[in-house]
Protein backbone atom coordinates (compact mmCIF):
# COMPACT_ATOMS: atom_id res chain seq x y z
CA UNK A 1 0.00 0.00 0.00
CA UNK A 2 2.64 2.40 1.13
CA UNK A 3 5.06 1.45 -1.60
CA UNK A 4 2.42 1.92 -4.30
CA UNK A 5 1.75 5.44 -3.05
CA UNK A 6 5.48 6.18 -3.03
CA UNK A 7 5.87 4.98 -6.61
CA UNK A 8 2.98 7.12 -7.75
CA UNK A 9 4.37 10.18 -5.99
CA UNK A 10 7.88 9.60 -7.30
CA UNK A 11 6.69 9.22 -10.87
CA UNK A 12 5.16 12.66 -10.52
CA UNK A 13 1.94 11.37 -12.00
CA UNK A 14 -0.20 12.74 -9.19
CA UNK A 15 1.22 16.23 -9.58
CA UNK A 16 1.02 16.06 -13.35
CA UNK A 17 -2.67 15.12 -13.50
CA UNK A 18 -3.56 17.83 -11.00
CA UNK A 19 -1.57 20.43 -12.92
CA UNK A 20 -3.00 19.49 -16.28
CA UNK A 21 -6.66 18.93 -15.66
CA UNK A 22 -7.67 21.08 -12.73
CA UNK A 23 -7.33 24.50 -14.41
CA UNK A 24 -9.25 23.38 -17.51
CA UNK A 25 -12.19 22.24 -15.44
CA UNK A 26 -12.10 25.20 -13.08
CA UNK A 27 -11.91 28.04 -15.60
CA UNK A 28 -14.25 28.78 -18.47
CA UNK A 29 -13.12 30.39 -21.72
CA UNK A 30 -11.58 33.84 -22.07
CA UNK A 31 -12.87 35.94 -24.98
CA UNK A 32 -9.54 36.50 -26.75
CA UNK A 33 -11.18 37.87 -29.93
CA UNK A 34 -12.85 40.68 -27.95
CA UNK A 35 -9.66 41.50 -26.06
CA UNK A 36 -7.62 41.60 -29.28
CA UNK A 37 -10.13 43.84 -31.08
CA UNK A 38 -8.61 47.21 -32.00
CA UNK A 39 -11.85 49.15 -32.51
CA UNK A 40 -15.02 49.63 -30.49
CA UNK A 41 -17.15 48.21 -33.31
CA UNK A 42 -15.05 45.06 -33.51
CA UNK A 43 -14.97 44.61 -29.72
CA UNK A 44 -18.75 45.00 -29.47
CA UNK A 45 -19.26 42.50 -32.27
CA UNK A 46 -17.03 39.96 -30.53
CA UNK A 47 -18.94 40.54 -27.29
CA UNK A 48 -22.21 39.86 -29.11
CA UNK A 49 -23.60 43.35 -28.52
CA UNK A 50 -25.80 44.34 -31.47
CA UNK A 51 -27.90 47.11 -29.94
CA UNK A 52 -27.67 48.73 -26.53
CA UNK A 53 -30.19 51.12 -25.01
CA UNK A 54 -28.91 54.18 -23.18
CA UNK A 55 -29.86 54.17 -19.51
CA UNK A 56 -29.29 56.22 -16.39
CA UNK A 57 -29.61 53.08 -14.28
CA UNK A 58 -25.94 52.24 -14.82
CA UNK A 59 -23.86 54.39 -12.52
CA UNK A 60 -20.27 55.21 -13.42
CA UNK A 61 -18.09 56.96 -10.90
CA UNK A 62 -14.89 58.18 -12.52
CA UNK A 63 -12.98 61.48 -12.27
CA UNK A 64 -13.69 63.86 -15.16
CA UNK A 65 -10.03 64.89 -15.32
CA UNK A 66 -7.02 62.80 -14.31
CA UNK A 67 -3.29 63.51 -14.28
CA UNK A 68 -2.22 60.07 -15.39
CA UNK A 69 -3.71 57.49 -17.71
CA UNK A 70 -1.87 54.61 -16.04
CA UNK A 71 -4.18 54.48 -13.05
CA UNK A 72 -7.71 55.73 -13.50
CA UNK A 73 -10.07 54.71 -10.68
CA UNK A 74 -13.46 53.54 -11.95
CA UNK A 75 -16.52 52.41 -10.01
CA UNK A 76 -19.42 50.89 -11.91
CA UNK A 77 -22.78 49.74 -10.64
CA UNK A 78 -26.08 48.72 -12.21
CA UNK A 79 -29.53 49.37 -10.75
CA UNK A 80 -31.19 47.44 -13.61
CA UNK A 81 -33.15 44.44 -12.36
CA UNK A 82 -31.46 41.12 -13.06
CA UNK A 83 -28.11 42.50 -14.20
CA UNK A 84 -26.02 39.48 -15.13
CA UNK A 85 -22.85 41.13 -16.36
CA UNK A 86 -21.07 44.45 -16.76
CA UNK A 87 -18.48 45.10 -19.48
CA UNK A 88 -16.11 48.04 -19.56
CA UNK A 89 -14.77 49.53 -22.79
CA UNK A 90 -12.57 52.57 -23.46
CA UNK A 91 -12.98 53.60 -27.08
CA UNK A 92 -9.64 55.39 -27.69
CA UNK A 93 -7.48 52.65 -26.15
CA UNK A 94 -5.47 50.51 -28.63
CA UNK A 95 -7.55 47.59 -27.32
CA UNK A 96 -10.90 49.08 -26.21
CA UNK A 97 -12.26 46.07 -24.31
CA UNK A 98 -11.01 46.19 -20.71
CA UNK A 99 -13.03 43.68 -18.73
CA UNK A 100 -16.30 41.80 -18.32
CA UNK A 101 -17.67 40.93 -14.89
CA UNK A 102 -20.32 38.26 -14.43
CA UNK A 103 -22.53 38.44 -11.35
CA UNK A 104 -24.43 35.40 -10.08
CA UNK A 105 -27.42 35.61 -7.73
CA UNK A 106 -26.02 36.81 -4.42
CA UNK A 107 -23.56 39.29 -5.90
CA UNK A 108 -24.28 43.00 -6.32
CA UNK A 109 -23.56 44.19 -9.91
CA UNK A 110 -20.84 46.46 -8.62
CA UNK A 111 -17.09 46.65 -9.13
CA UNK A 112 -14.35 49.14 -8.43
CA UNK A 113 -11.04 48.88 -10.27
CA UNK A 114 -8.19 50.89 -11.78
CA UNK A 115 -7.80 51.02 -15.55
CA UNK A 116 -5.26 52.27 -18.08
CA UNK A 117 -6.20 54.98 -20.54
CA UNK A 118 -3.97 55.75 -23.51
CA UNK A 119 -5.54 59.19 -24.01
CA UNK A 120 -8.66 61.23 -23.23
CA UNK A 121 -11.60 59.08 -24.17
CA UNK A 122 -15.13 57.94 -23.62
CA UNK A 123 -15.65 55.17 -21.14
CA UNK A 124 -18.57 52.81 -21.86
CA UNK A 125 -20.23 50.38 -19.52
CA UNK A 126 -22.51 47.75 -21.02
CA UNK A 127 -24.91 45.87 -18.80
CA UNK A 128 -26.61 42.60 -19.66
CA UNK A 129 -30.06 42.25 -18.12
CA UNK A 130 -32.91 39.93 -19.18
CA UNK A 131 -31.21 39.14 -22.46
CA UNK A 132 -30.84 42.79 -23.49
CA UNK A 133 -27.91 45.19 -23.50
CA UNK A 134 -27.86 48.62 -21.89
CA UNK A 135 -25.15 51.25 -22.04
CA UNK A 136 -23.95 54.31 -20.15
CA UNK A 137 -20.94 56.49 -20.98
CA UNK A 138 -18.65 59.03 -19.32
CA UNK A 139 -15.92 61.22 -20.72
CA UNK A 140 -12.49 61.27 -19.08
CA UNK A 141 -9.80 63.83 -19.88
CA UNK A 142 -6.18 62.88 -19.30
CA UNK A 143 -3.69 65.52 -18.12
CA UNK A 144 -5.03 68.69 -19.75
CA UNK A 145 -1.81 70.42 -18.74
CA UNK A 146 -1.63 73.85 -17.22
CA UNK A 147 -1.45 77.06 -19.21
CA UNK A 148 0.66 80.13 -18.39
CA UNK A 149 -2.48 82.13 -17.66
CA UNK A 150 -3.54 79.62 -15.04
CA UNK A 151 -0.08 79.70 -13.45
CA UNK A 152 -0.16 83.47 -12.94
CA UNK A 153 -3.81 83.80 -11.93
Amino acid at each position, binding site marked *: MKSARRTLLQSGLGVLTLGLFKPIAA*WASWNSAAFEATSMAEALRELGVVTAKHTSLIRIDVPEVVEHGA*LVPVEIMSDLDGTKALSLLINRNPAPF*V*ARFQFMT*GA*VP*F*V*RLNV*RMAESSWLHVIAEADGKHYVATRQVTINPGITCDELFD
Partner: protein
Amino acid sequence: MPLAQMRVRAVSGRTTTDVRLLVPHAMQGGMERDSENRVVAAHFVQRVSIKLNGRLLVDSEIGPGVSRNPVFTFRLAGGAKGDKVEVSWRDNKGESQTVEAIVS
Protein backbone atom coordinates in the same frame (compact mmCIF):
# COMPACT_ATOMS: atom_id res chain seq x y z
CA MET B 1 10.26 35.33 -10.17
CA PRO B 2 8.15 34.11 -7.26
CA LEU B 3 4.74 35.68 -7.09
CA ALA B 4 3.86 37.78 -4.10
CA GLN B 5 0.75 36.69 -2.25
CA MET B 6 -2.58 38.23 -3.23
CA ARG B 7 -4.16 40.19 -0.38
CA VAL B 8 -7.87 39.81 0.35
CA ARG B 9 -10.12 41.59 2.83
CA ALA B 10 -13.82 40.92 3.27
CA VAL B 11 -15.75 43.34 5.44
CA SER B 12 -19.47 43.02 6.12
CA GLY B 13 -21.65 46.10 6.15
CA ARG B 14 -25.33 46.36 7.06
CA THR B 15 -26.69 44.36 4.13
CA THR B 16 -23.68 43.68 1.93
CA THR B 17 -20.10 42.43 2.16
CA ASP B 18 -17.31 44.19 0.33
CA VAL B 19 -14.45 42.04 -0.91
CA ARG B 20 -11.31 43.99 -1.67
CA LEU B 21 -8.35 42.27 -3.28
CA LEU B 22 -4.91 43.22 -4.49
CA VAL B 23 -3.06 41.04 -6.99
CA PRO B 24 0.66 41.84 -7.22
CA HIS B 25 1.10 41.44 -10.98
CA ALA B 26 2.95 43.30 -13.77
CA MET B 27 -0.07 43.25 -16.18
CA GLN B 28 2.19 43.42 -19.25
CA GLY B 29 0.13 43.76 -22.40
CA GLY B 30 2.90 42.71 -24.78
CA MET B 31 3.14 46.14 -26.42
CA GLU B 32 5.92 47.64 -24.30
CA ARG B 33 9.68 47.46 -24.87
CA ASP B 34 12.44 47.27 -22.26
CA SER B 35 15.56 49.48 -22.02
CA GLU B 36 17.27 47.34 -24.70
CA ASN B 37 14.29 47.69 -27.03
CA ARG B 38 13.18 44.09 -26.67
CA VAL B 39 9.45 43.43 -26.62
CA VAL B 40 8.30 42.53 -23.11
CA ALA B 41 6.23 39.36 -23.41
CA ALA B 42 2.54 39.62 -22.58
CA HIS B 43 1.90 38.58 -18.99
CA PHE B 44 -1.37 39.60 -17.43
CA VAL B 45 -4.19 38.36 -15.24
CA GLN B 46 -7.09 37.02 -17.30
CA ARG B 47 -9.58 35.86 -14.73
CA VAL B 48 -10.64 36.75 -11.22
CA SER B 49 -13.38 34.90 -9.37
CA ILE B 50 -15.04 35.15 -5.98
CA LYS B 51 -16.72 32.38 -4.01
CA LEU B 52 -18.73 32.76 -0.83
CA ASN B 53 -18.93 29.59 1.28
CA GLY B 54 -17.97 27.55 -1.79
CA ARG B 55 -20.55 29.12 -4.17
CA LEU B 56 -19.30 31.06 -7.20
CA LEU B 57 -20.71 34.62 -7.08
CA VAL B 58 -18.46 36.67 -9.35
CA ASP B 59 -16.49 35.56 -12.39
CA SER B 60 -14.59 37.92 -14.65
CA GLU B 61 -12.55 38.16 -17.81
CA ILE B 62 -9.95 40.91 -17.71
CA GLY B 63 -7.24 42.16 -20.05
CA PRO B 64 -4.14 44.38 -20.04
CA GLY B 65 -6.39 47.47 -19.91
CA VAL B 66 -6.48 46.94 -16.16
CA SER B 67 -3.69 48.78 -14.29
CA ARG B 68 -0.56 47.14 -12.89
CA ASN B 69 -1.02 45.41 -9.50
CA PRO B 70 -4.80 45.28 -9.92
CA VAL B 71 -7.01 46.24 -7.01
CA PHE B 72 -10.67 45.22 -7.17
CA THR B 73 -13.61 45.76 -4.88
CA PHE B 74 -16.61 43.47 -5.33
CA ARG B 75 -19.86 43.58 -3.38
CA LEU B 76 -21.79 40.54 -2.19
CA ALA B 77 -25.42 40.65 -1.08
CA GLY B 78 -25.48 39.18 2.38
CA GLY B 79 -22.46 37.52 3.89
CA ALA B 80 -22.03 37.47 7.64
CA LYS B 81 -19.06 37.61 9.97
CA GLY B 82 -17.24 34.26 9.89
CA ASP B 83 -18.32 33.36 6.32
CA LYS B 84 -15.58 32.07 4.04
CA VAL B 85 -14.62 34.06 0.94
CA GLU B 86 -12.37 32.43 -1.65
CA VAL B 87 -10.70 34.59 -4.30
CA SER B 88 -8.82 33.14 -7.28
CA TRP B 89 -6.98 34.61 -10.21
CA ARG B 90 -5.28 33.10 -13.23
CA ASP B 91 -2.99 34.74 -15.81
CA ASN B 92 -2.22 34.08 -19.48
CA LYS B 93 0.80 31.91 -18.60
CA GLY B 94 -1.36 29.61 -16.52
CA GLU B 95 -0.09 30.89 -13.17
CA SER B 96 -2.79 31.09 -10.56
CA GLN B 97 -3.43 31.75 -6.92
CA THR B 98 -6.31 31.16 -4.52
CA VAL B 99 -6.61 32.98 -1.21
CA GLU B 100 -9.23 32.51 1.48
CA ALA B 101 -10.46 35.17 3.83
CA ILE B 102 -12.97 35.17 6.64
CA VAL B 103 -15.60 37.92 6.58
CA SER B 104 -15.01 40.37 9.43
